[in-house]
């Protein structure tokens, strides 16, 4: 029973990571109706930038804030320079551009920062194990940070006029433009926000899995699975889905398929959701008239 609880707790902790990446994916989806394959690589790059700040002697939370800002600018620039010109191109072009960015950002990260695995500090050290050794301080802290980000995002989208404008721009660009919303700026903003949220996920996961240029590949797939499970157009759903995938992955890894096949669990979840309930557990069912 204790082992089961331990697996459950570990699942919730990794689920928090998936939840924040899933949140970033859903952000981009809400702003552009696209899924960014390079999200993980962008988050890894942000984490390396954070490490650079920390090694330069900045306190953790200053480095954290600076990384958020840099990531936001990076995301907005990517939208401006790379996505804007192909805005109206077919989906194949978009997929190609995402793959291109994945290759460029991932390999540049390795080129600049090296391929050796690095230790990344956690801001939540020193608390020792809690809840009878079920959760480490860092695991608890990162879950807290994920939930905090979720609350902020929720408030931003529902309570601010900027959030409302962003939703309008994604939902109906033409009408939004007619009422004076600058749709282009909203798109860039959406990409910037997603990159910033992704960087939070990167900084939270790095102390657990250690930092290397390919850190995010597996995580990205779990996050996709989580986002789909919760509903790709529903931020709280994506967070719930992320946690759920984390728990499922850990339990399946421990009791059913063994750790080598953990990644296949993500694949099965993705296919299962898309085939059985494409709108996800909490998503809106969309009909399209032909």
């Amino acid at each position, binding site marked *: 029973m204790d082992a089961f609880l331990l697996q459950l707790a570990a699942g919730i902790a990794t689920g928090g990571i998936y939840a924040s990446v899933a949140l970033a994916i859903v952000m981009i989806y809400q702003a552009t109706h696209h899924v960014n394959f390079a999200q993980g690589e962008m988050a890894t790059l942000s984490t390396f930038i954070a490490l650079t700040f920390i090694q330069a002697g900045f306190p953790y939370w200053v480095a954290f804030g600076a990384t958020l800002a840099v990531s936001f600018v990076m995301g907005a620039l990517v939208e401006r320079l790379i996505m804007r010109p192909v805005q109206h191109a077919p*989906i194949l072009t978009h997929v190609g551009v995402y793959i291109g960015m994945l290759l460029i950002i991932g390999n540049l990260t390795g080129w600049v920062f090296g391929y050796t695995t690095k230790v990344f500090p956690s801001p939540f050290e020193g608390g020792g194990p809690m809840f009878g050794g079920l959760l480490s301080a860092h695991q608890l802290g990162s879950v807290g940070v994920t939930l905090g980000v979720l609350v902020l995002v929720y408030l931003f989208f529902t309570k601010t006029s900027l959030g409302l404008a962003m939703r309008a721009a994604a939902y109906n660009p033409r009408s939004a433009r007619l009422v004076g919303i600058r749709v282009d700026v909203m798109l860039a903003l959406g990409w910037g926000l997603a990159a910033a949220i992704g960087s939070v996920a990167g900084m939270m996961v790095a102390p657990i899995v250690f930092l290397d240029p390919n850190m995010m590949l*597996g995580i990205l797939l779990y996050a996709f699975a989580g986002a789909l499970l919760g509903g790709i157009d529903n931020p709280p759903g994506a967070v719930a889905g992320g946690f759920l995938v984390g728990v499922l992955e850990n339990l399946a890894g421990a009791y059913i398929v063994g750790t080598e096949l953990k*990644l296949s669990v993500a*694949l099965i979840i993705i296919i299962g959701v898309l085939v059985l309930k494409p709108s996800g557990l909490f998503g809106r069912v969309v009909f399209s008239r032909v």
Partner: protein
Amino acid sequence: MSAIQDTPTLAAAAPRASIARRSVWLALGLAAALAPLWLLESFHLFQLTMAVIMSLAVLGLNIVTGYNGQISLGHGAFFAIGAYVTAILMAQADWSFYATLPFAAAVCGMVGYAVGLPALRLGGLYLALVTFSLAVAVPQLLKHRALEGWTGGVQGLFLMKPEPPAWLTARVAITPDQFMYLVALVVAALCYLLAWNLIRGRIGRALMATRDHPTAAEAMGMDIAALKTRAFAVSAMITGVAGALSAAAVEFVAPDSFTFLLSISLFVGMVVGGVASILGSVFGGLFVLFVPNIAESISRAAPGVIYGIILIVFLFVLPDGVAGLVRRVLARLGGRAS
């Protein structure tokens, strides 16, 4: 209609060329394909063999993604399955290489059909996502303990190239490497012929109509579900045959030869060579094999970066790839001559 004309294939140009002109081109092509047998020493001949194999794999991808519009980022999985079927049958059951080829094709065709079924319910981006995760999961599956008895686990399997038969060695001096190149060339040529025939005929038109306007295609009585799943099956079959050839050419299979980067390089090769172009698949195969080799001499990270940059530049500047460029240059030259 216009959408179909926007994607000209060899088929569109062929009827106009006179028979004499066509046979000249054919002879030139044959000479160009056979010349390396005498001109290249064994390592470069091996590389060219792999390029032929890669172009076959890109052709398979092109059928489902280029002509049918179902984006697959996981064709490396079919390549791996084809390679493993051949390797297992040769190493564990002592089959001859030629006997494994139809078997590998059949297995990959069936797996492709099975993947095509859920794909029916998924739009462009989601399908890309699912196939992408398939590509990431494949090396893990191949390493798994339950399959170790067959696949050899992390160590992989060793096998032998097909030996040149006695009736051939009795007449000409031919090394196994040269023979392997010939085998790859013949199999690839057969598959290209098959694909060309498929694309230029009724089925090809139906595939492209399904891609460009599914509603209209369905209204004209096409069975979209059958077309899409069968396109997936044929595509997986061709890519699987390429995998089987590669297992024989390399004489070794291991899970880590089939990471998701293989799937991605097939995709990049298709875009660079030319989406929905049979000729483009040839350029794609050459690109997939030779560009990383050149880039690797700069730095370990360079192939990825250069791949990515080339991919994005092509999508921005030359969305119809090298094949489109060649076609435009030829059209301009032809226009001046007449």
